[in-house]
């Protein structure tokens, strides 16, 4: 996919996708003139098959599917270095957020990556408990990702140090959280929000 010949035409360039990214991120994609400063400072660049500047470049060419097919967006640490240093005010961190949301929505091929899984469990925890329940988060992650032995030695140590709580109480006002989730879902159903 990465080096495959690219056919460019009105049909092959998915402008709708790009418009969505721009709306979600509140940042122009076309504004980027490919200076490469984002990739130069990105701590995760080495882990990505498309470094940040190329992610924007592919968006400029309407090649969203090439981005979603890869893992680059899931390796962004949201450190905001790119956004801070961009000479042309492209909010790349926000664009990355938007791309991840669209990948999530589209049930994209990378949805079940470890990062995605961690994110999903994290949000599930919020919905269930109101606050993070780190022990459950870690345990569930290991179960679902099939890495039963991951950080095996770390867990008990952290528990003994008081860093992980065995039990977690729900917020009293947990209904408020459920309300927030519900109302957002409703808005999306009605098309009032992206």
């Amino acid at each position: 996919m990465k080096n495959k010949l690219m056919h460019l035409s009105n049909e092959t360039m998915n402008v709708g996708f790009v418009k969505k990214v721009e709306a979600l991120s509140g940042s122009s994609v076309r504004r980027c003139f490919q200076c490469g400063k984002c990739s130069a400072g990105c701590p995760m660049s080495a882990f990505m098959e498309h470094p940040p500047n190329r992610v924007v470049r592919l968006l400029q060419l309407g090649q969203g599917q090439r981005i979603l097919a890869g893992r680059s967006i899931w390796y962004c640490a949201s450190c905001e270095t790119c956004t801070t240093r961009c000479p042309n005010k492209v909010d790349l961190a926000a664009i990355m957020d938007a791309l991840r949301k669209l990948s999530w929505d589209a049930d994209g091929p990378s949805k079940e990556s470890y990062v995605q899984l961690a994110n999903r469990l994290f949000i599930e925890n919020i919905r269930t408990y109101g606050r993070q329940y780190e022990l459950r988060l870690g345990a569930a992650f290991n179960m679902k990702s099939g890495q039963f032995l991951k950080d095996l030695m770390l867990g008990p140590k952290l528990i003994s140090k008081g860093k992980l709580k065995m039990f977690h109480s729900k917020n009293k006002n947990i209904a408020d959280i459920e309300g927030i989730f519900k109302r957002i879902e409703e808005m999306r159903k009605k098309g009032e929000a992206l």
Partner: protein
Amino acid sequence: MTPGKKRLSYSYYPGCSLHASGREYDISTRALFKALNVGLKEVPDWFCCGATPAHNVDELLSLSLCAKNLSLAEEVEGDLAVACAACFSRLKTTQHHLKEDDTKRKQVEVAIDGPAAINKPVKHILEILAREFGLARLEESVKKPLLGLKVASYYGCLLTRPPEVPELDDCEDPSIMEDLLRALGAEPVKWSHRMECCGANFTLSRPGVVLKLSNAILESARIAGADCIMVACPLCHGNLDIRQKEIKEAYGAPDSTLFGNIFGSELRGGSAPDQRDVPIFYVTQLAALAMGVASESLGFESVITDPKPLLRDKQLL
């Protein structure tokens, strides 16, 4: 205290980590504020801010969670004090976005079923200590100066970036931590990795990433001659402290990388690779220590990379 000056008092949003893996941050924050006679009242029934995972995949959810927390905080008097850099960043980002973007604000207000408290002042602990309480007063209040302690102050990503959001300090060359350290009598070292990413929340999903990035930070601190690193974020603390042993195993002696094999000994002046433990302190732990708070009430027992030998060595215990 300056006569006639009102007692400072804040509402307090600790965030999830400070009630769990970062409990010592919470403990030391409370102890420090007590020692400084600054009021701190926890917002009742606060929720998780959503942290990175929420905005990673669902910005609206992230904004709504933070907005909800802000309106909960409205109920408590005083500016909102936040210790966790991630929570601070999310709350400030939310306010910034909702101020700038009417559509988003309206959507969020629907989601939380009420007005968004976009004007509630949100302050990071660093800001409160260095600016509101003031460096001069802080210096006056020091009972046990941290003499001889060489500290690498680690800002991480979210305290300063992007500049228009946290509005804390210069986004590329901040000095607030160093100023604070000087006021406490410690010696801030000059080093290269103050603002580099530690790998953040990949600690769960991609620990390999964390090991690589955090190793670079620890290395840099050692090369600069730091005794320890000071942080203001529970996630950074987690990565640098909890995973420090793992990092050593992965990158430690003999230096397994090609670079390390060839240049490692030259860089270190021909001696064996520097494998010193680098204790990681929260800003509030060091500040409280300098204020003469008993070390037992600063949660040092929860720290994995034991700081006590260092503190003893510097006669701070």
